[in-house]
């Protein structure tokens, strides 16, 4: 496999890893605060729809992005209400959120645009266009680094770079700030935070909100950057993969980046039977490629890649008075 092909595969890896990464970080904030969230999928989907819808009607991708974040935040609110205020079962709440998004997006899309549950195609400013980084064209022809910079680093949409920036940012917030310390503490032992005079409820809602924002960006990316519009179920299980990546990453930001890149790479590879055949010298069955991420996840969970210990208070509502 020559450099260019490799770069192209990696390039598509970047595109496919971005939504995973955003969702994964979203899950990271939520679960670090002790709120499990299998509703990432639904949040992304809702965000994807509303961002596309608003981007189409307003003609501005950025407005779309805001709307997407809004939609995702609403679902986060529901999840928070269920699992923080009413101490419900977080898994069940997550399932409900996924169902809700899957249904509502299509119902609303249909009655809004009457196009069988999809939004119209987005044109021009309603989409995020690739950004060509400075000098990209200039050094394009410099051997090796030229193509690397031009093909791989440059030429992605703003959201891709935002996603990448989120990694160090998350790390900094979690480990260098007061908020981060308290957030991690509330996921480990809420009582300690409570008796230290900090509101457990407040912290957890904050975490869930951050989760909503990040999922919102992820969804908007799907519909207004990667694609030009919304089609039903377009999140296509990415939320679950992100969860798997989160476990793989042992709830740490940098690992999350690597995990998502790995899953993105697997997905990108699945699109290039020719490359795989070239590399392995025999045809690999398509279905196998498609499920590789899932199988990998199971293997990871089986702990063959080191045990992943979730936050101690994870999934447990904070109950003071029985």
């Amino acid at each position, binding site marked *: 496999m020559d450099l260019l092909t490799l770069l192209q595969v990696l390039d598509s890896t970047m595109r496919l890893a971005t939504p995973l990464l955003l969702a994964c970080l979203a899950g990271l904030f939520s679960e670090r605060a002790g709120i499990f969230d*299998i509703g990432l999928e639904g949040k992304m989907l809702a965000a994807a729809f509303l961002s596309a819808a608003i981007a189409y009607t307003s003609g501005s991708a950025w407005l779309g992005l805001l709307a997407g974040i809004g939609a995702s935040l609403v679902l986060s609110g*529901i999840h928070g*209400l*269920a*699992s923080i205020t*009413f*101490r*419900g*079962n*977080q*898994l*069940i*709440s997550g*399932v*409900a*959120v*996924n*169902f*809700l998004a*899957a*249904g*509502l*997006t*299509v*119902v*609303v899309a*249909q*009655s809004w645009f009457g196009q069988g*549950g999809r939004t119209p195609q987005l044109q021009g400013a309603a989409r995020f266009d690739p950004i060509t980084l400075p000098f990209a064209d200039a050094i394009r022809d410099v051997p090796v680094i030229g193509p690397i910079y031009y093909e791989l680093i440059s030429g992605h949409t703003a959201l891709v770079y935002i996603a990448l920036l989120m990694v160090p940012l998350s790390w900094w917030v979690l480990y260098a700030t007061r908020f981060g310390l308290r957030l991690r503490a509330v996921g480990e032992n809420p009582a300690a935070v409570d008796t230290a005079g900090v509101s457990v409820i407040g912290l957890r809602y904050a975490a869930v909100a951050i989760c909503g924002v990040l999922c919102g960006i992820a969804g908007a990316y799907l519909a207004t950057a990667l694609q030009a519009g919304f089609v*039903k179920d377009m999140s296509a*299980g990415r939320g*679950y993969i992100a*969860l*798997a990546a989160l*476990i793989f990453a042992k709830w740490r930001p940098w690992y999350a980046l690597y995990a998502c890149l790995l899953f993105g790479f697997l997905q990108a590879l699945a699109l290039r039977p020719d490359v795989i055949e070239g590399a392995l010298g025999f045809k690999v*069955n398509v*279905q*196998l490629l*498609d*499920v590789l991420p*899932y*199988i990998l*996840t*199971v293997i990871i*969970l*089986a*702990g063959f890649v080191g045990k992943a210990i*979730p936050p101690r208070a994870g999934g447990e509502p904070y109950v003071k008075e029985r």
Partner: protein
Amino acid sequence: MDVMPKWADVVLIPLISLLLAAILSALVILAIGESPMNALKIMVDGALGSTYGWGYTLYYATNFIFTGLAVSIAFHARMFNIGGEGQAMIGGLGVALVCMYVPWPHWSLALLGGTVAAALFGAAWAAIPAFLQAKRGSHIVITTIMFNFIAAALLNYLLIGALKPQGSMEPATGKFPEATHLPNLHDVLGFFGIEFSKAAPANITFFVAILACVAVWALIWRTKLGYEIRAFGHSESAAKYAGISPTKIIMVSMLISGGLAGMMAINNVQGEAERLVLNAVEGAGFIGIAVALMGRSHPFGVFLAAILFGFLYQGGAELALWTKIPREMIVVIQALVILFTGALDNMVRMPLERAFLAAKRRNKGAA
């Protein structure tokens, strides 16, 4: 002392939750410019207005009884089997194999064979996640979700390959031989002289489902195994003290759960389609979760909840047929039901408990 009388817990709370879900659904329908009343009418007529409608309602209900029971069993052992979808798919594979490759003399035997195969295959699909949970502590929710995806892929692979008849356009098996076709309710009830629509897919499996309910009830509340499963579900530490092996309980309850989910296949694959198609399960595995929640994991509750969801499903199909309301509206309604009966349970419970407590205090005062 318990704060609330039992009836409030098992009847009142679910009813209120349902009501809330219904109101919100009505609002959504209004919002998309349709009349909730009209929608309700169409659903009721279409689902309960004729033996034909009933035939579909019961057909769906049968699926949900199996998946609902599956989720319930797991719940009793405090496990969340979200993999009913995949287990039912693989159960379908089992049914397809025995129906196609075994020359059955009579449908009754075919039903038996199909049931066994479905249960075995479903259980097998639950086995790996169960084992990983028991031995490696891998979170069963995630693993079972993953196994849903893997099951789908496996089925595709077989249905566009080995199992697809030459030249057929569809990823599906050919029709099963005549002898494996199950009598539908028309034939069964006809035997007792009851008139029932010939066209509806509801079939004898419905009675198998009822049997399953009874069996599960007996298992949970009348046998040592059930006693141990519930004990483990309530307190793992206490179970250990009593000499109940966690590994055994996790494995056994998940195998039973998977088996029940798989058994759904005798209804939709052997009973209705009479061949194996892609996505034959159609989300029944997930609806099982809602059914189990609403049914409070009790077989009888599951039965009622399954009928309710069967009604929603059939009614929803009718909606899509005769109005501009898209079929996904039903997914929304399901979501709301799961949300209110499951996750937001306390929203209804807490105020109720306070009310009952206040009432008690007052009575005490009076006495």
